[in-house]
């Protein structure tokens, strides 16, 4: 094919001079000398006699559009060159496709080459984004328009594919959210049942009246677990006491009946205040002591006992600090870590610490992670005072019931001290809490004298109706009891740890004669 330039040249010139008349002749002529391929071209030509110019082409519109370009090319008297296959007009064979100039610049190309180019751009693996590819002239960046037959079916399918692709993310999100809401709903539902017992629960939820559940409750139920979890965090401190106001505001006027025993909803509404009061009590009374105990089991605690009071004082001041700036918090953490380096030699001397300094470094990193966890969950968390940067003994910063990060070098102590640490544990604790309350309520029913827990039999006995006679009352008292018991237990174990710390001794190596060695202290 490449061996025929002169002949082609001639034929193309002919074609240019009178394209309409000479096209078929030219084709025949050009194909004659090609011994091997001519037969092919010939048959194609014969079976497909429509040369672009002479045939009633179905695509008349693009061709008409192209024709003026042809004339300009002719007027330049320079063969057009396909920018894709680099073949110029003179080499056109009968099988080569038509010339197209899709853009304002001088690039022209064979239609088939352009279509290949476009197909490559449209190929899914070459696409950068999910949107339709930009089909444009690489030189002048003008958009190349493609006329293609429109098929309703194909376009419908494509539109549907696009739509489904667009809906995947929202759908996933909605499904997940739905799962969570349903789970919360179920949890709320079972919470009501657990706390109030079947009869009260059905009355509350309005199940016996309506076919379904009261719509108010249907909306409210999922918030029960959320509120339970929120109640475990400090963030709820500001919010929870506000909520019951809505209750009082909405039910206040028509509330009747005796003030004692309080109704179920009334009791629940009062709970946030009880919680706040208890927390306040704990912070003021128990927390400082706890800190002191924890301080005692720090390595070399006795050496700077003088600081203790000072720190306690400051720690107490911190208890009233109520900030939520976690960024600030993390800053403090980092400073603390740096300061922590000062402690390394001290800790290394401490008798019970067996790990090397490297281990301690790891421990500190763990500590820090745990700190972050704590502050993320905000479980009784106090955001430390920023001024503590200058304090050389930062141990007291995170001392609360559940935050004793510096002790986990030692397994036994760590187990006692580091419970309720992580976020999953907090959530689990919050969600299980209604069950625990109900169980405690049941225990109360068994443990307390019958007259306390059974409803009065006669009408005139009414005045002595007790709070504990209803199941919800027992559940709530049981829950509160559990919290108090748990905190007491934790406090006691810390106290014991602090006391036992003083009694420790190192056991000498048991010698050859099996003689017990004495204490070294």
């Amino acid at each position, binding site marked *: 094919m490449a061996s025929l330039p002169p002949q082609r040249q001639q034929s193309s010139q002919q074609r240019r001079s009178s394209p309409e008349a000479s096209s078929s002749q030219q084709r025949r002529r050009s194909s004659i000398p090609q011994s091997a391929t001519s037969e092919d071209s010939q048959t194609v030509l014969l079976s497909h006699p429509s040369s672009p110019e002479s045939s009633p082409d179905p695509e008349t519109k693009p061709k008409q559009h192209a024709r003026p370009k042809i004339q300009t090319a002719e007027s330049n008297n320079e063969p057009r060159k396909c920018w*894709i*296959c*680099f073949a110029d007009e003179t080499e056109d064979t009968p099988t080569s496709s038509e010339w197209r100039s899709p853009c304002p610049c001088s690039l022209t190309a064979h239609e088939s080459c352009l279509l*290949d180019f476009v197909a*490559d751009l449209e190929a899914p693996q070459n696409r950068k984004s999910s949107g339709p590819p930009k089909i444009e002239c690489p030189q002048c960046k003008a958009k190349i328009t493609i006329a293609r037959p429109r098929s309703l079916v194909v376009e419908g399918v494509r539109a549907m594919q696009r739509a489904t692709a667009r809906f995947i993310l929202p759908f996933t999100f909605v499904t997940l959210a739905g799962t969570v809401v349903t789970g919360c709903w179920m949890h709320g539902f079972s919470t009501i049942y657990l706390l109030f017992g079947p009869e009260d629960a059905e009355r509350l939820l309005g199940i016996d009246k309506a076919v379904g559940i009261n719509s108010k409750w249907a909306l409210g139920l999922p918030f029960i677990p959320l509120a339970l979890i929120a109640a475990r965090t400090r963030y709820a401190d500001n919010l929870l006491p506000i909520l019951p106001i809505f209750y009082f505001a909405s039910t206040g006027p028509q509330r009747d009946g005796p003030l004692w025993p309080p109704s179920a909803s009334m009791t629940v509404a009062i709970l946030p205040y009880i919680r706040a009061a208890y927390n306040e009590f704990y912070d003021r009374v128990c927390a400082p002591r706890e800190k002191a105990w924890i301080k005692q089991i720090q390595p070399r605690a006795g050496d700077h006992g003088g600081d203790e009071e000072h720190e306690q004082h400051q720690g107490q001041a911190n208890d009233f600090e109520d900030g939520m700036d976690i960024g600030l918090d993390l800053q403090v953490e980092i400073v603390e870590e740096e300061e922590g380096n000062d402690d390394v030699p001290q800790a290394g001397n401490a008798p019970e610490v067996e790990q090397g300094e490297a281990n301690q470094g790891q421990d500190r990193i763990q500590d820090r992670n745990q700190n972050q966890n704590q502050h993320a969950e905000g479980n009784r968390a106090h955001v430390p005072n920023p001024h503590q940067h200058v304090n050389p003994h930062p141990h007291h910063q995170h001392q609360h019931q559940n935050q004793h990060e510096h002790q986990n070098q030692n397994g036994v102590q760590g187990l006692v001290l580091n419970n309720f640490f992580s976020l999953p544990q907090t959530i689990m604790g919050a969600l299980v809490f209604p069950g625990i309350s109900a169980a405690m309520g049941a225990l109360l029913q068994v443990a307390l004298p019958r007259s306390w827990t059974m409803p009065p039999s006669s009408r005139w006995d009414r005045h002595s109706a007790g709070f504990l006679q209803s199941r919800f009352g027992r559940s709530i008292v049981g829950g509160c009891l559990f919290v108090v018991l748990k905190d007491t237990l934790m406090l006691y174990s810390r106290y014991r740890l602090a006391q036992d710390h003083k009694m420790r001794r190192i056991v000498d190596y048991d010698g050859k004669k099996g003689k017990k060695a004495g204490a070294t202290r």
Partner: protein
Amino acid sequence: MFANKRLGKELAKIQQSLPPGIDFVSAPDFKQWEMDIRVLDANPLYADQTYRLRFRFSPNYPIEAPEVTFIHLSQPLRTIPIHPHIYSNGIICLDLLGTQGWSPVQNVESVCMSLQSMLTGNTKNERPPGDEEFVRRNTQRPRDIRFVYEDSSV
């Protein structure tokens, strides 16, 4: 077929004339060619050095980009030029050689010229960041690697 025709055209033109600093080396077939390029100005990084480029063409050339790499030879001595976009195994991170940057307007000659100017404009005597790691780990062919073209200055 498509590629062969176009490459035949390009070859004919390359054998006639080439811009200064670009030399044709060999084209045994329409699959793999080799070209030599030199930097013309007095860039101290590349002075008196000639670099060998290997072009590999797929049957879909020029719709698909050719695979262009620098190759190392001992006879005649050809090294891999030091450049922040050229890895020491010869793989070149240049957008016009990637799927997104390539277009059929480009050809062997224009690619050579682009690489020539890429070397000419360079002042940094360094390999791309992570070169060692990339060279050790990479088993992909250049065109399958997803480069991120962030630097348009070189």
